[in-house]
Protein backbone atom coordinates (compact mmCIF):
# COMPACT_ATOMS: atom_id res chain seq x y z
CA UNK A 1 0.00 0.00 0.00
CA UNK A 2 1.11 3.54 -0.67
CA UNK A 3 1.46 6.25 1.96
CA UNK A 4 -1.63 8.37 2.47
CA UNK A 5 -1.60 11.22 -0.01
CA UNK A 6 -3.83 14.10 -1.04
CA UNK A 7 -4.82 13.91 -4.71
CA UNK A 8 -7.56 15.12 -6.99
CA UNK A 9 -10.03 12.51 -8.25
CA UNK A 10 -8.81 12.46 -11.83
CA UNK A 11 -5.24 11.86 -10.68
CA UNK A 12 -6.37 9.19 -8.23
CA UNK A 13 -8.10 7.45 -11.10
CA UNK A 14 -5.01 7.62 -13.29
CA UNK A 15 -2.66 6.36 -10.59
CA UNK A 16 -5.06 3.57 -9.62
CA UNK A 17 -5.41 2.57 -13.28
CA UNK A 18 -1.65 2.29 -13.72
CA UNK A 19 -1.37 0.27 -10.51
CA UNK A 20 -4.15 -1.97 -11.86
CA UNK A 21 -2.03 -2.80 -14.89
CA UNK A 22 -3.55 -0.32 -17.34
CA UNK A 23 -0.97 0.07 -20.09
CA UNK A 24 -2.93 1.92 -22.75
CA UNK A 25 -4.86 5.16 -22.68
CA UNK A 26 -6.60 6.84 -25.60
CA UNK A 27 -8.57 10.05 -25.25
CA UNK A 28 -9.52 13.51 -26.41
CA UNK A 29 -9.54 16.68 -24.26
CA UNK A 30 -12.74 17.81 -22.60
CA UNK A 31 -13.37 19.62 -19.31
CA UNK A 32 -13.79 18.60 -16.48
CA UNK A 33 -11.52 15.56 -16.78
CA UNK A 34 -8.42 16.81 -18.63
CA UNK A 35 -6.16 16.14 -15.65
CA UNK A 36 -6.70 12.40 -16.19
CA UNK A 37 -5.25 12.21 -19.73
CA UNK A 38 -2.54 14.62 -18.61
CA UNK A 39 -1.66 12.29 -15.74
CA UNK A 40 -1.62 9.28 -18.05
CA UNK A 41 0.55 11.10 -20.60
CA UNK A 42 3.16 12.15 -18.07
CA UNK A 43 3.17 8.82 -16.23
CA UNK A 44 3.29 6.67 -19.36
CA UNK A 45 6.13 8.80 -20.74
CA UNK A 46 8.26 7.38 -17.92
CA UNK A 47 7.25 3.77 -18.63
CA UNK A 48 8.54 1.67 -21.51
CA UNK A 49 5.56 -0.67 -21.76
CA UNK A 50 2.69 1.80 -21.89
CA UNK A 51 0.93 3.63 -24.70
CA UNK A 52 -0.70 7.06 -24.62
CA UNK A 53 -2.31 8.50 -27.72
CA UNK A 54 -4.23 11.75 -27.85
CA UNK A 55 -6.68 10.89 -30.58
CA UNK A 56 -8.25 13.21 -33.14
CA UNK A 57 -11.73 12.57 -31.74
CA UNK A 58 -13.72 10.59 -29.21
CA UNK A 59 -14.68 8.25 -32.03
CA UNK A 60 -11.06 7.54 -32.79
CA UNK A 61 -10.13 7.11 -29.14
CA UNK A 62 -12.80 4.52 -28.38
CA UNK A 63 -11.80 2.63 -31.52
CA UNK A 64 -8.15 2.70 -30.48
CA UNK A 65 -9.44 1.19 -27.23
CA UNK A 66 -11.05 -1.60 -29.29
CA UNK A 67 -7.76 -2.29 -31.07
CA UNK A 68 -5.63 -2.22 -27.92
CA UNK A 69 -8.09 -4.33 -25.96
CA UNK A 70 -8.15 -6.86 -28.80
CA UNK A 71 -4.44 -7.45 -28.18
CA UNK A 72 -5.22 -8.35 -24.55
CA UNK A 73 -3.98 -5.17 -22.85
CA UNK A 74 -5.70 -3.43 -19.95
CA UNK A 75 -6.93 -0.24 -21.56
CA UNK A 76 -8.81 2.90 -20.56
CA UNK A 77 -10.40 5.96 -22.07
CA UNK A 78 -12.08 8.88 -20.35
CA UNK A 79 -14.24 11.83 -21.20
CA UNK A 80 -17.13 13.93 -19.99
CA UNK A 81 -20.77 13.84 -21.08
CA UNK A 82 -20.68 15.18 -24.69
CA UNK A 83 -17.58 13.13 -25.41
CA UNK A 84 -19.15 10.00 -23.94
CA UNK A 85 -22.07 10.44 -26.36
CA UNK A 86 -19.55 10.26 -29.20
CA UNK A 87 -18.03 7.08 -27.79
CA UNK A 88 -21.31 5.19 -27.70
CA UNK A 89 -20.81 3.52 -31.07
CA UNK A 90 -17.54 2.00 -29.96
CA UNK A 91 -18.94 1.01 -26.56
CA UNK A 92 -21.67 -0.99 -28.28
CA UNK A 93 -18.98 -2.76 -30.33
CA UNK A 94 -16.89 -3.45 -27.22
CA UNK A 95 -19.91 -5.08 -25.59
CA UNK A 96 -20.71 -7.14 -28.69
CA UNK A 97 -17.09 -8.16 -29.28
CA UNK A 98 -16.83 -9.02 -25.57
CA UNK A 99 -13.76 -6.86 -25.14
CA UNK A 100 -12.75 -5.59 -21.69
CA UNK A 101 -12.17 -1.86 -21.30
CA UNK A 102 -12.60 0.84 -18.68
CA UNK A 103 -14.45 3.98 -19.70
CA UNK A 104 -14.55 6.97 -17.38
CA UNK A 105 -17.31 9.58 -17.55
CA UNK A 106 -16.86 12.66 -15.37
CA UNK A 107 -20.35 13.98 -15.97
CA UNK A 108 -21.05 17.66 -16.61
CA UNK A 109 -24.16 19.73 -17.13
CA UNK A 110 -26.19 18.96 -20.24
CA UNK A 111 -27.91 18.28 -22.62
CA UNK A 112 -25.94 19.67 -25.55
CA UNK A 113 -22.79 21.52 -24.68
CA UNK A 114 -24.31 22.29 -21.27
CA UNK A 115 -21.58 23.44 -18.94
CA UNK A 116 -18.60 22.08 -17.05
CA UNK A 117 -20.18 21.91 -13.60
CA UNK A 118 -20.86 18.59 -11.84
CA UNK A 119 -24.10 16.88 -12.91
CA UNK A 120 -25.70 13.44 -13.13
CA UNK A 121 -27.68 13.63 -16.34
CA UNK A 122 -26.03 10.62 -17.97
CA UNK A 123 -27.52 7.91 -15.74
CA UNK A 124 -29.84 6.60 -18.45
CA UNK A 125 -27.08 6.67 -21.05
CA UNK A 126 -24.73 4.74 -18.77
CA UNK A 127 -27.11 2.17 -17.33
CA UNK A 128 -29.64 1.57 -20.09
CA UNK A 129 -27.31 0.89 -22.98
CA UNK A 130 -26.31 4.25 -24.41
CA UNK A 131 -25.30 2.84 -27.76
CA UNK A 132 -27.37 0.64 -30.06
CA UNK A 133 -28.42 -2.93 -29.43
CA UNK A 134 -29.08 -5.19 -26.45
CA UNK A 135 -26.21 -4.72 -24.07
CA UNK A 136 -25.33 -3.45 -20.61
CA UNK A 137 -22.34 -1.75 -19.10
CA UNK A 138 -21.15 -2.41 -15.59
CA UNK A 139 -21.43 1.06 -14.04
CA UNK A 140 -19.55 1.93 -10.84
CA UNK A 141 -20.28 5.20 -9.04
CA UNK A 142 -17.62 6.38 -6.58
CA UNK A 143 -18.44 9.02 -3.98
CA UNK A 144 -15.09 9.40 -2.19
CA UNK A 145 -11.48 9.78 -3.24
CA UNK A 146 -10.56 6.45 -1.72
CA UNK A 147 -13.47 4.82 -3.51
CA UNK A 148 -12.21 6.17 -6.84
CA UNK A 149 -8.96 4.28 -6.24
CA UNK A 150 -10.73 1.10 -5.12
CA UNK A 151 -13.35 1.13 -7.86
CA UNK A 152 -10.74 1.72 -10.55
CA UNK A 153 -8.99 -1.50 -9.52
CA UNK A 154 -12.35 -3.24 -9.39
CA UNK A 155 -13.30 -1.89 -12.83
CA UNK A 156 -10.24 -3.40 -14.52
CA UNK A 157 -10.70 -6.72 -12.73
CA UNK A 158 -14.40 -6.93 -13.62
CA UNK A 159 -13.74 -5.95 -17.24
CA UNK A 160 -11.29 -8.82 -17.62
CA UNK A 161 -13.31 -11.30 -15.60
CA UNK A 162 -16.50 -10.81 -17.59
CA UNK A 163 -14.93 -9.63 -20.86
CA UNK A 164 -17.09 -6.55 -20.91
CA UNK A 165 -16.68 -2.77 -20.89
CA UNK A 166 -16.99 -1.15 -17.44
CA UNK A 167 -17.85 2.49 -16.85
CA UNK A 168 -16.73 4.56 -13.88
CA UNK A 169 -19.43 7.21 -13.58
CA UNK A 170 -18.26 10.26 -11.66
CA UNK A 171 -18.93 13.93 -12.05
CA UNK A 172 -16.93 17.13 -12.23
CA UNK A 173 -16.85 17.30 -8.43
CA UNK A 174 -15.48 13.77 -8.02
CA UNK A 175 -12.86 14.54 -10.63
CA UNK A 176 -11.66 17.87 -9.27
CA UNK A 177 -11.90 17.38 -5.52
CA UNK A 178 -8.84 16.31 -3.57
CA UNK A 179 -9.16 13.88 -0.69
CA UNK A 180 -6.75 11.65 1.18
CA UNK A 181 -6.20 8.33 -0.56
CA UNK A 182 -4.15 5.20 -0.06
CA UNK A 183 -3.33 3.13 -3.13
CA UNK A 184 -3.07 -0.64 -3.31
CA UNK A 185 0.28 -2.03 -4.45
CA UNK A 186 0.80 -2.14 -8.20
CA UNK A 187 -0.12 -5.36 -9.98
CA UNK A 188 2.59 -7.21 -11.88
CA UNK A 189 1.44 -7.07 -15.49
CA UNK A 190 3.67 -9.98 -16.47
CA UNK A 191 1.73 -12.24 -14.11
CA UNK A 192 -1.69 -11.55 -15.64
CA UNK A 193 -3.30 -14.71 -17.02
CA UNK A 194 -2.91 -15.10 -20.78
CA UNK A 195 -6.08 -14.13 -22.64
CA UNK A 196 -6.77 -17.06 -24.95
CA UNK A 197 -8.87 -14.91 -27.26
CA UNK A 198 -6.45 -12.02 -27.79
CA UNK A 199 -5.07 -11.13 -31.20
CA UNK A 200 -1.31 -11.39 -31.16
CA UNK A 201 -0.59 -12.96 -34.55
CA UNK A 202 -1.48 -16.59 -35.27
CA UNK A 203 1.84 -18.08 -34.23
CA UNK A 204 1.61 -21.81 -33.50
CA UNK A 205 -2.18 -21.64 -33.24
CA UNK A 206 -5.18 -21.17 -35.55
CA UNK A 207 -5.98 -17.59 -36.51
CA UNK A 208 -8.49 -15.74 -34.33
CA UNK A 209 -11.30 -13.36 -35.20
CA UNK A 210 -12.81 -10.68 -32.98
CA UNK A 211 -16.11 -9.62 -34.46
CA UNK A 212 -19.59 -8.37 -33.76
CA UNK A 213 -21.18 -9.14 -37.13
CA UNK A 214 -23.43 -12.20 -37.21
CA UNK A 215 -25.42 -12.03 -40.45
CA UNK A 216 -27.29 -15.22 -39.66
CA UNK A 217 -30.06 -14.16 -37.22
CA UNK A 218 -29.91 -17.35 -35.09
CA UNK A 219 -26.19 -16.69 -34.58
CA UNK A 220 -26.85 -13.10 -33.55
CA UNK A 221 -29.61 -14.34 -31.26
CA UNK A 222 -27.14 -16.76 -29.72
CA UNK A 223 -24.74 -13.85 -29.02
CA UNK A 224 -27.56 -11.86 -27.44
CA UNK A 225 -28.56 -14.68 -25.10
CA UNK A 226 -24.95 -15.36 -24.22
CA UNK A 227 -24.60 -11.71 -23.23
CA UNK A 228 -27.78 -11.95 -21.17
CA UNK A 229 -26.45 -14.97 -19.27
CA UNK A 230 -23.29 -12.99 -18.57
CA UNK A 231 -25.29 -9.98 -17.39
CA UNK A 232 -27.36 -12.21 -15.11
CA UNK A 233 -24.20 -13.60 -13.53
CA UNK A 234 -22.85 -10.06 -13.08
CA UNK A 235 -26.11 -8.98 -11.44
CA UNK A 236 -25.88 -11.81 -8.93
CA UNK A 237 -22.21 -11.38 -8.19
CA UNK A 238 -21.27 -7.70 -8.00
CA UNK A 239 -24.27 -5.63 -6.92
CA UNK A 240 -23.14 -3.29 -4.16
CA UNK A 241 -24.46 -0.44 -2.03
CA UNK A 242 -23.84 1.58 1.10
CA UNK A 243 -26.62 1.45 3.68
CA UNK A 244 -26.23 4.23 6.23
CA UNK A 245 -28.35 4.73 9.35
CA UNK A 246 -31.19 2.75 7.84
CA UNK A 247 -31.88 0.29 10.69
CA UNK A 248 -34.45 2.51 12.39
CA UNK A 249 -35.05 4.84 9.46
CA UNK A 250 -38.51 5.96 8.43
CA UNK A 251 -37.31 8.12 5.54
CA UNK A 252 -34.50 6.96 3.29
CA UNK A 253 -32.72 9.10 0.72
CA UNK A 254 -31.49 7.24 -2.35
CA UNK A 255 -28.58 9.01 -4.04
CA UNK A 256 -25.25 8.15 -5.67
CA UNK A 257 -21.90 9.86 -6.16
CA UNK A 258 -21.62 13.49 -5.15
CA UNK A 259 -25.36 13.69 -4.50
CA UNK A 260 -25.03 10.88 -1.96
CA UNK A 261 -22.41 12.78 0.03
CA UNK A 262 -24.69 15.80 0.18
CA UNK A 263 -27.59 13.56 1.15
CA UNK A 264 -25.52 12.01 3.92
CA UNK A 265 -24.85 15.47 5.33
CA UNK A 266 -28.59 16.12 5.18
CA UNK A 267 -29.34 12.87 7.01
CA UNK A 268 -27.08 14.00 9.86
CA UNK A 269 -28.81 17.34 10.07
CA UNK A 270 -32.37 16.01 10.18
CA UNK A 271 -31.44 13.25 12.64
CA UNK A 272 -30.46 16.02 15.05
CA UNK A 273 -33.99 17.37 14.57
CA UNK A 274 -35.42 13.99 15.50
CA UNK A 275 -36.29 12.80 11.99
CA UNK A 276 -35.34 9.16 11.53
CA UNK A 277 -33.60 9.40 8.17
CA UNK A 278 -31.09 7.13 6.44
CA UNK A 279 -29.15 6.91 3.19
CA UNK A 280 -29.15 4.19 0.55
CA UNK A 281 -26.27 4.72 -1.86
CA UNK A 282 -25.97 2.42 -4.89
CA UNK A 283 -22.27 1.83 -5.58
CA UNK A 284 -23.09 -0.22 -8.67
CA UNK A 285 -25.61 1.66 -10.81
CA UNK A 286 -25.77 -1.28 -13.17
CA UNK A 287 -26.44 -3.81 -11.86
CA UNK A 288 -28.75 -1.72 -9.68
CA UNK A 289 -29.03 -2.95 -6.08
CA UNK A 290 -32.79 -3.00 -6.39
CA UNK A 291 -33.53 -6.21 -4.50
CA UNK A 292 -31.88 -4.89 -1.35
CA UNK A 293 -33.75 -1.61 -1.66
CA UNK A 294 -37.01 -3.42 -2.32
CA UNK A 295 -36.77 -5.47 0.86
CA UNK A 296 -35.89 -2.36 2.88
CA UNK A 297 -38.78 -0.39 1.43
CA UNK A 298 -41.40 -2.57 3.16
CA UNK A 299 -40.52 -0.94 6.48
CA UNK A 300 -40.19 2.63 5.26
CA UNK A 301 -42.62 5.50 5.34
CA UNK A 302 -41.03 7.35 2.48
CA UNK A 303 -38.18 7.20 -0.02
CA UNK A 304 -36.72 10.41 -1.42
CA UNK A 305 -34.55 10.07 -4.51
CA UNK A 306 -32.10 12.93 -4.87
CA UNK A 307 -30.22 13.33 -8.15
CA UNK A 308 -28.30 16.10 -9.87
CA UNK A 309 -30.63 15.59 -12.82
CA UNK A 310 -34.35 15.91 -13.56
CA UNK A 311 -34.95 12.34 -12.44
CA UNK A 312 -33.41 9.23 -13.96
CA UNK A 313 -32.37 6.77 -11.25
CA UNK A 314 -35.75 7.42 -9.63
CA UNK A 315 -37.28 5.23 -12.35
CA UNK A 316 -35.18 2.27 -11.23
CA UNK A 317 -36.04 2.96 -7.59
CA UNK A 318 -39.77 2.95 -8.38
CA UNK A 319 -39.35 -0.17 -10.50
CA UNK A 320 -38.02 -2.11 -7.52
CA UNK A 321 -40.00 -0.50 -4.72
CA UNK A 322 -43.22 -1.34 -6.57
CA UNK A 323 -45.34 0.95 -4.44
CA UNK A 324 -44.35 -0.57 -1.10
CA UNK A 325 -43.81 2.99 0.08
CA UNK A 326 -44.15 6.41 -1.54
CA UNK A 327 -41.18 7.47 -3.65
CA UNK A 328 -40.59 11.20 -4.14
CA UNK A 329 -37.99 12.89 -6.25
CA UNK A 330 -35.88 15.98 -5.70
CA UNK A 331 -33.48 17.08 -8.40
CA UNK A 332 -31.06 19.88 -9.22
CA UNK A 333 -29.94 19.52 -12.85
CA UNK A 334 -27.68 21.75 -14.91
CA UNK A 335 -24.60 21.66 -12.73
CA UNK A 336 -26.23 23.10 -9.60
CA UNK A 337 -24.79 21.46 -6.48
CA UNK A 338 -27.19 21.43 -3.56
CA UNK A 339 -26.07 22.03 -0.01
CA UNK A 340 -26.75 19.50 2.72
CA UNK A 341 -28.97 22.19 4.31
CA UNK A 342 -31.13 22.29 1.20
CA UNK A 343 -31.62 18.54 1.17
CA UNK A 344 -32.23 18.55 4.92
CA UNK A 345 -35.02 21.01 4.21
CA UNK A 346 -36.44 18.62 1.64
CA UNK A 347 -36.36 15.74 4.12
CA UNK A 348 -38.00 17.81 6.85
CA UNK A 349 -40.76 18.67 4.42
CA UNK A 350 -41.61 15.05 3.60
CA UNK A 351 -44.08 14.68 6.48
CA UNK A 352 -45.99 17.82 5.52
CA UNK A 353 -46.14 16.91 1.85
CA UNK A 354 -44.07 19.94 0.96
CA UNK A 355 -41.57 18.06 -1.16
CA UNK A 356 -40.97 19.63 -4.51
CA UNK A 357 -40.25 17.77 -7.69
CA UNK A 358 -37.63 20.30 -8.63
CA UNK A 359 -36.03 23.48 -7.43
Amino acid sequence: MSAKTLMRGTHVLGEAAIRSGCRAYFGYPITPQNELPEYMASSFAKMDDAVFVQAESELASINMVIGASATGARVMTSSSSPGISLKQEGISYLAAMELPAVIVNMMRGGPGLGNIAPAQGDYFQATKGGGHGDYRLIVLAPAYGQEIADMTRQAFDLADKYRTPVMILGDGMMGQMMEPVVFPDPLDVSKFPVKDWALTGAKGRPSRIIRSLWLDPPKEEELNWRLVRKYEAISQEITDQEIYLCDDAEIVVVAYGTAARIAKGAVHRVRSQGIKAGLFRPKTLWPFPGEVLASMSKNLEHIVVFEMSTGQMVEDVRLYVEGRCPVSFYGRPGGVVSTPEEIAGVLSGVGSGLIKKSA
Partner: protein
Amino acid sequence: MSLKIIFSGFGGQGVLMMGYVLAFAGMNEDKHVTFLPSYGAEVRGGTANCTVVVSDEEIASPIASSPEFVVAMNYPSMIKYQNMVKPGGTMFLNSDLISEDPARDDINVVKAPVNTLAHEMKADRSLNMVMLGVVAVKTDMVSEDALMSAIEKVLQGKKKSLIEMNQNALKAGMKFAADNN
Protein backbone atom coordinates in the same frame (compact mmCIF):
# COMPACT_ATOMS: atom_id res chain seq x y z
CA MET B 1 -15.53 20.16 14.49
CA SER B 2 -16.07 20.86 10.81
CA LEU B 3 -14.63 24.07 9.37
CA LYS B 4 -14.79 25.41 5.86
CA ILE B 5 -12.50 28.02 4.39
CA ILE B 6 -12.34 29.65 0.98
CA PHE B 7 -9.01 31.00 -0.28
CA SER B 8 -9.34 33.55 -3.07
CA GLY B 9 -7.16 35.89 -5.04
CA PHE B 10 -5.57 36.23 -8.45
CA GLY B 11 -3.29 33.84 -10.28
CA GLY B 12 0.29 33.92 -9.02
CA GLN B 13 -0.59 34.66 -5.39
CA GLY B 14 -0.29 31.01 -4.47
CA VAL B 15 -3.94 30.74 -3.52
CA LEU B 16 -4.23 27.04 -4.43
CA MET B 17 -1.05 26.20 -2.55
CA MET B 18 -2.42 27.82 0.61
CA GLY B 19 -5.42 25.51 0.48
CA TYR B 20 -3.39 22.49 -0.47
CA VAL B 21 -0.93 22.93 2.41
CA LEU B 22 -3.79 23.38 4.87
CA ALA B 23 -5.60 20.28 3.58
CA PHE B 24 -2.38 18.28 3.60
CA ALA B 25 -1.72 19.30 7.21
CA GLY B 26 -5.25 18.29 8.18
CA MET B 27 -4.80 14.91 6.50
CA ASN B 28 -1.62 14.30 8.46
CA GLU B 29 -3.51 14.97 11.66
CA ASP B 30 -5.87 12.17 10.56
CA LYS B 31 -8.72 14.59 10.06
CA HIS B 32 -11.16 14.31 7.20
CA VAL B 33 -10.25 16.87 4.55
CA THR B 34 -11.41 17.95 1.13
CA PHE B 35 -9.75 20.41 -1.23
CA LEU B 36 -11.79 21.74 -4.14
CA PRO B 37 -10.07 24.04 -6.62
CA SER B 38 -11.96 26.22 -9.05
CA TYR B 39 -11.62 24.77 -12.50
CA GLY B 40 -12.21 25.16 -16.21
CA ALA B 41 -13.42 28.43 -17.67
CA GLU B 42 -13.60 29.86 -14.16
CA VAL B 43 -9.81 29.93 -13.85
CA ARG B 44 -9.18 31.46 -17.27
CA GLY B 45 -9.95 35.00 -16.13
CA GLY B 46 -6.92 35.18 -13.85
CA THR B 47 -8.81 34.62 -10.62
CA ALA B 48 -8.15 31.63 -8.42
CA ASN B 49 -9.98 30.16 -5.51
CA CYS B 50 -10.25 26.93 -3.60
CA THR B 51 -12.29 25.55 -0.76
CA VAL B 52 -10.90 23.44 2.05
CA VAL B 53 -12.93 21.54 4.61
CA VAL B 54 -11.25 20.16 7.72
CA SER B 55 -13.47 17.99 9.86
CA ASP B 56 -13.54 15.37 12.58
CA GLU B 57 -16.39 13.65 10.74
CA GLU B 58 -16.89 12.43 7.20
CA ILE B 59 -17.34 15.44 4.91
CA ALA B 60 -20.62 15.67 3.07
CA SER B 61 -20.04 18.47 0.59
CA PRO B 62 -16.67 19.92 -0.36
CA ILE B 63 -18.44 23.12 -1.37
CA ALA B 64 -18.82 25.93 1.14
CA SER B 65 -21.95 28.02 0.66
CA SER B 66 -21.45 29.74 4.00
CA PRO B 67 -17.88 29.14 5.11
CA GLU B 68 -16.61 29.98 8.57
CA PHE B 69 -13.56 31.64 7.00
CA VAL B 70 -12.70 33.44 3.78
CA VAL B 71 -9.25 34.61 2.76
CA ALA B 72 -9.28 37.44 0.21
CA MET B 73 -5.89 38.19 -1.27
CA ASN B 74 -7.18 41.01 -3.48
CA TYR B 75 -10.08 43.47 -3.63
CA PRO B 76 -12.29 41.67 -6.20
CA SER B 77 -12.13 38.56 -4.04
CA MET B 78 -13.36 40.44 -1.01
CA ILE B 79 -16.28 41.80 -3.01
CA LYS B 80 -17.08 38.38 -4.41
CA TYR B 81 -17.06 36.46 -1.14
CA GLN B 82 -17.92 38.97 1.62
CA ASN B 83 -21.61 38.05 1.67
CA MET B 84 -20.92 34.32 1.92
CA VAL B 85 -19.08 34.36 5.24
CA LYS B 86 -21.09 32.70 7.98
CA PRO B 87 -22.30 35.22 10.61
CA GLY B 88 -19.73 35.22 13.37
CA GLY B 89 -17.11 33.99 10.92
CA THR B 90 -13.89 35.68 9.91
CA MET B 91 -12.65 37.34 6.76
CA PHE B 92 -8.88 37.57 6.25
CA LEU B 93 -7.81 40.47 4.06
CA ASN B 94 -4.52 41.20 2.35
CA SER B 95 -4.39 44.82 3.55
CA ASP B 96 -1.64 45.69 1.07
CA LEU B 97 -4.15 45.34 -1.76
CA ILE B 98 -7.44 45.95 0.07
CA SER B 99 -8.05 49.30 1.75
CA GLU B 100 -11.80 49.01 2.30
CA ASP B 101 -13.65 46.98 4.89
CA PRO B 102 -16.23 44.34 4.02
CA ALA B 103 -19.82 45.59 4.07
CA ARG B 104 -20.70 43.35 7.01
CA ASP B 105 -20.99 44.09 10.70
CA ASP B 106 -21.61 40.51 11.82
CA ILE B 107 -18.21 39.05 10.95
CA ASN B 108 -14.68 39.45 12.24
CA VAL B 109 -12.07 41.02 10.00
CA VAL B 110 -8.37 40.23 10.21
CA LYS B 111 -6.10 42.45 8.15
CA ALA B 112 -2.54 41.50 7.33
CA PRO B 113 -0.11 43.31 5.00
CA VAL B 114 1.21 40.05 3.58
CA ASN B 115 2.93 41.56 0.53
CA THR B 116 4.92 43.85 2.82
CA LEU B 117 5.72 41.13 5.35
CA ALA B 118 6.91 38.79 2.60
CA HIS B 119 8.94 41.55 0.97
CA GLU B 120 10.67 42.39 4.25
CA MET B 121 11.87 38.80 4.42
CA LYS B 122 13.04 38.98 0.78
CA ALA B 123 10.46 36.30 0.04
CA ASP B 124 7.95 38.14 -2.13
CA ARG B 125 6.42 34.98 -3.53
CA SER B 126 5.82 33.49 -0.10
CA LEU B 127 3.04 35.95 0.71
CA ASN B 128 0.64 33.00 0.61
CA MET B 129 2.42 31.23 3.46
CA VAL B 130 2.49 34.46 5.46
CA MET B 131 -1.29 34.62 5.13
CA LEU B 132 -1.61 30.92 5.96
CA GLY B 133 0.35 31.61 9.16
CA VAL B 134 -2.14 34.34 10.09
CA VAL B 135 -5.04 31.97 9.32
CA ALA B 136 -3.44 29.20 11.39
CA VAL B 137 -3.30 31.35 14.52
CA LYS B 138 -6.80 32.76 14.18
CA THR B 139 -8.66 29.59 13.18
CA ASP B 140 -6.90 26.79 15.00
CA MET B 141 -7.90 24.36 12.22
CA VAL B 142 -4.57 22.50 12.29
CA SER B 143 -1.41 22.64 14.39
CA GLU B 144 1.75 24.58 13.57
CA ASP B 145 3.73 21.34 13.43
CA ALA B 146 1.34 19.86 10.91
CA LEU B 147 1.65 22.95 8.71
CA MET B 148 5.43 23.01 8.91
CA SER B 149 5.71 19.38 7.88
CA ALA B 150 3.00 19.84 5.22
CA ILE B 151 5.10 22.57 3.58
CA GLU B 152 8.04 20.19 3.54
CA LYS B 153 5.96 17.39 2.02
CA VAL B 154 4.21 19.57 -0.54
CA LEU B 155 7.51 21.05 -1.72
CA GLN B 156 9.30 17.70 -1.62
CA GLY B 157 12.01 17.60 -4.26
CA LYS B 158 12.36 21.38 -4.35
CA LYS B 159 15.40 23.24 -3.05
CA LYS B 160 15.90 23.18 0.72
CA SER B 161 16.20 26.96 0.77
CA LEU B 162 12.76 27.29 -0.84
CA ILE B 163 11.19 25.00 1.75
CA GLU B 164 12.80 26.99 4.57
CA MET B 165 11.71 30.27 3.05
CA ASN B 166 8.10 29.11 3.00
CA GLN B 167 8.33 27.77 6.52
CA ASN B 168 9.80 31.07 7.70
CA ALA B 169 7.02 32.95 5.92
CA LEU B 170 4.48 30.81 7.76
CA LYS B 171 6.15 31.63 11.08
CA ALA B 172 6.25 35.34 10.20
CA GLY B 173 2.51 35.25 9.56
CA MET B 174 1.91 33.47 12.85
CA LYS B 175 4.04 36.04 14.70
CA PHE B 176 2.15 38.92 13.05
CA ALA B 177 -1.17 37.43 14.10
CA ALA B 178 0.03 36.86 17.66
CA ASP B 179 1.41 40.41 17.92
CA ASN B 180 -1.72 42.04 16.52
CA ASN B 181 -4.35 40.39 18.62
